C-alpha cells in the first residue's frame, strides 16, 4: 500500500500562458520510472478534500519530482496549482503510481510518442530517460498544441534533438510564421506522414485529452499498428 507523503514546493516555472511546472521535494520519495504519475490531495480548512492525478515529468532516483499542470479555468484543483502555489507550500502526494504506461531502457523497440497538450508530461519523462540512459533506439515525438506558446518544455525538447530523438509539432490553432502547413488536427494522414511506420513495429505511447487519445489510437490501429503495442493514457477533458 502506498501512503500519502507531504511534499514541499521548491520551484515553479511558467511554461505556457495556461500552464506551469512545479517542483516538489518529497521526503521518502523512492524515485520513479518514466511515465508514472502521482495522486495529489488538497485539503481545505473545513476538511474538504480533492484528489487529482498528475504525471511526473522527472525520472530516476532522488526525492524531487517535477509536475507540469495545465489550467482548466473552471476546475477545482488545477487553477490553484497553476496560479496560487508558491515555493514553501506543502502538498500531499501519493506515488509513484502505475507500471503499465512506462518506458524503461530495456525496451529496445523504436518508440513513437504522441502528445496532446499537457499529455507531454509523462512523455518528456520518457525522452529524458532515453537521453539519460544513452539508449540508442530511435525515439520520435509528435506533439500537438494549439499555438507555439502552448508548448510545454519547448527549449528542453529542442536541446534533446539528436540522431535518435526527433520532435514534430502539429499546431491546431495558429502556427509560427513561415510554418509550412496551416493549423490542422492530428489526422490519420498527419500520423502517417510524421510518425514511425507500423512496418518498423514501434512501441507507441499516446497521452493527452481523452478525445485526442482515442482518435490517435484509432488512426494508429487503422495504419496497421498492433493494438497491443499502442499504450494510451487519458487525461480526461
Amino acid at each position, binding site marked *: *500500500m*502506498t501512503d500519502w507523503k507531504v511534499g514541499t514546493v521548491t520551484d515553479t516555472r511558467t511554461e505556457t500562458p495556461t500552464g506551469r511546472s512545479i517542483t516538489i521535494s518529497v521526503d521518502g520519495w523512492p524515485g520513479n520510472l518514466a511515465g508514472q*504519475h*502521482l*495522486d495529489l490531495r488538497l485539503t481545505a480548512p473545513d476538511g474538504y*478534500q*480533492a*484528489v*487529482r*492525478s498528475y504525471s511526473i515529468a522527472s525520472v530516476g532516483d532522488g526525492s524531487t519530482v517535477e509536475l507540469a499542470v495545465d489550467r482548466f479555468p473552471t476546475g477545482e484543483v488545477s487553477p490553484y496549482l497553476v496560479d496560487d502555489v508558491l515555493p514553501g507550500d506543502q502538498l500531499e502526494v*501519493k*506515488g*509513484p*503510481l*502505475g*507500471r*503499465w*504506461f512506462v518506458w524503461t531502457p530495456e525496451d529496445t523497440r523504436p518508440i513513437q510518442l504522441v502528445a496532446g497538450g499537457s499529455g507531454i508530461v509523462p512523455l518528456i519523462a520518457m525522452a529524458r530517460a532515453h537521453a539519460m540512459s544513452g539508449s540508442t533506439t530511435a525515439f520520435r515525438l509528435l506533439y500537438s498544441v494549439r499555438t507555439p506558446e502552448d508548448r510545454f518544455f519547448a527549449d528542453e525538447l529542442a536541446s534533446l534533438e539528436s540522431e535518435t530523438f526527433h520532435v514534430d509539432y502539429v499546431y491546431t490553432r495558429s502556427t509560427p510564421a513561415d510554418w509550412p502547413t496551416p493549423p490542422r488536427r492530428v489526422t490519420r494522414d498527419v500520423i502517417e506522414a510524421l510518425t514511425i511506420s507500423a512496418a518498423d513495429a514501434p512501441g507507441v505511447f499516446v497521452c493527452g*485529452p*481523452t*478525445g485526442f487519445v482515442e482518435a490517435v489510437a484509432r488512426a494508429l490501429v487503422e495504419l496497421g499498428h498492433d493494438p497491443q503495442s499502442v*499504450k*494510451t*493514457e*487519458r*487525461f*480526461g*477533458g
Partner: protein
Amino acid sequence: MTSHVDGNALAGSLSEIFRTDMTTAVCCCGGCGDTTTIATEMVYGTDALAHGSIVRCRSCDDVLITLVDTPERTVVRFPGITTLTVDRETPPA
C-alpha cells in the same frame, strides 16, 4: 462535464486495497469475455473521494468495478469481473 479516463487513473485508489500495482493486472469481463489490463479499461469519475469511480469494460461497457473512498473506509465491488490476474513478479508500486 467530465469525460471518462482509463484505468491508469485508478492506480492510486486501487493501491489502497491491493499491495501491488493494479494497472498491469489483467481482468476478464463476465459480460463479453474481453481480457485486458486494467489500464486499458474505461473509468468514469476519478475523484473516488468525492463521487466514487466506475470501471467499465472497454468493449461491452458492462460495469467491472465500483470504488468509493471515504476518509474512514474504501468500498470496492467487482460486479462484472470473472477473473483478475495479478503478476506475482510485479514489485509494489
